[in-house]
């Protein structure tokens, strides 16, 4: 059945689903941000989303973790190891400190810009490698 403008209504959705599952299934976009205020953690966010298109670049040395159900839970469970892996690459540090009449407040933001990772789940392990 054709729609009014001549396109098949489910064609684009089906194509996107097929391409997404075949091409971008093992590639994820991961970003991290940590905000501390006065030496206390105020906010910490880890963004994980599947990549909708293939990533370009070279594979960096991988990190192997014991896998959980999803990538998010795997990263949460092995947070220290993943932090150390991110630390090998680059982190953006921004620190603002304000002192008014000798009363000081500070705000530090640690950001790992969103980057593409290749993730492979195999035999109970997850292999994560940055594509750069």
């Amino acid at each position: 059945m054709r729609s009014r403008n001549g396109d098949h209504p489910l064609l684009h959705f089906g194509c996107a689903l097929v391409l997404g599952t075949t091409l971008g299934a093992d590639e994820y976009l991961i970003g991290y941000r940590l905000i501390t205020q006065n030496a206390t953690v105020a906010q910490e966010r880890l963004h994980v989303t599947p990549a909708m298109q293939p990533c370009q670049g070279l594979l960096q040395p991988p990190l192997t973790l014991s896998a959980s159900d999803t990538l998010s839970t795997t990263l949460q469970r092995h947070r220290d190891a993943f932090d150390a892996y991110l630390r090998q690459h680059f982190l953006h540090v921004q620190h603002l400190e304000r002192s008014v009449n000798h009363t000081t407040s500070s705000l530090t933001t640690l950001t790992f810009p969103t980057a593409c990772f290749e993730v492979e789940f195999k035999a109970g392990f997850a292999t994560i490698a940055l594509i750069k």
Partner: protein
Amino acid sequence: MRYPTLAMTFLAGFALIGCAPTQPQQSEQNATMVLTSAYDRCSGDMQIKPYMIENVETIRGLPNQLTPCHSIRINVVGQGVAPTTTISPAQAFAMAKRAAVADAYRMIAERIAGVHVEGHDFIKNMVVQRSEVRTKVDALIRNATIAETSYKEGLCEVEMEIILSYTSVVL
């Protein structure tokens, strides 16, 4: 054909003798001599060897600059405090460690990239009404490692280390 070849050989020998480095004066510091020997041992492919780092760092009075044979090691200790709303000691430790890592990164960034300082003082009738100082640090840090972590009475201290080498900056 034999005599010109011999003459050229002698000339080259004299030229090499004339280009030989002279002995350093006694007034020069020993540090300079050690640095010169370090440069001689440095390989041509700009690879920084670990023993070179140790040798060069023990020299006193050297300028703190980055050269192909001289690496700079920076050690900082960041401090972090757990929030008051944690539900367990483990969570408190984890949160305090996060804050300490961020503080250590801030200190490294201050050492490497510097601090932007801006101050405003509002004075009225010769009396300071408001004094405000703002500082800002902005940097990209790579390859920093955690050397040691300690947690005591709600305060977490993280010792972080970074080695600045010529190759890591250039490449």
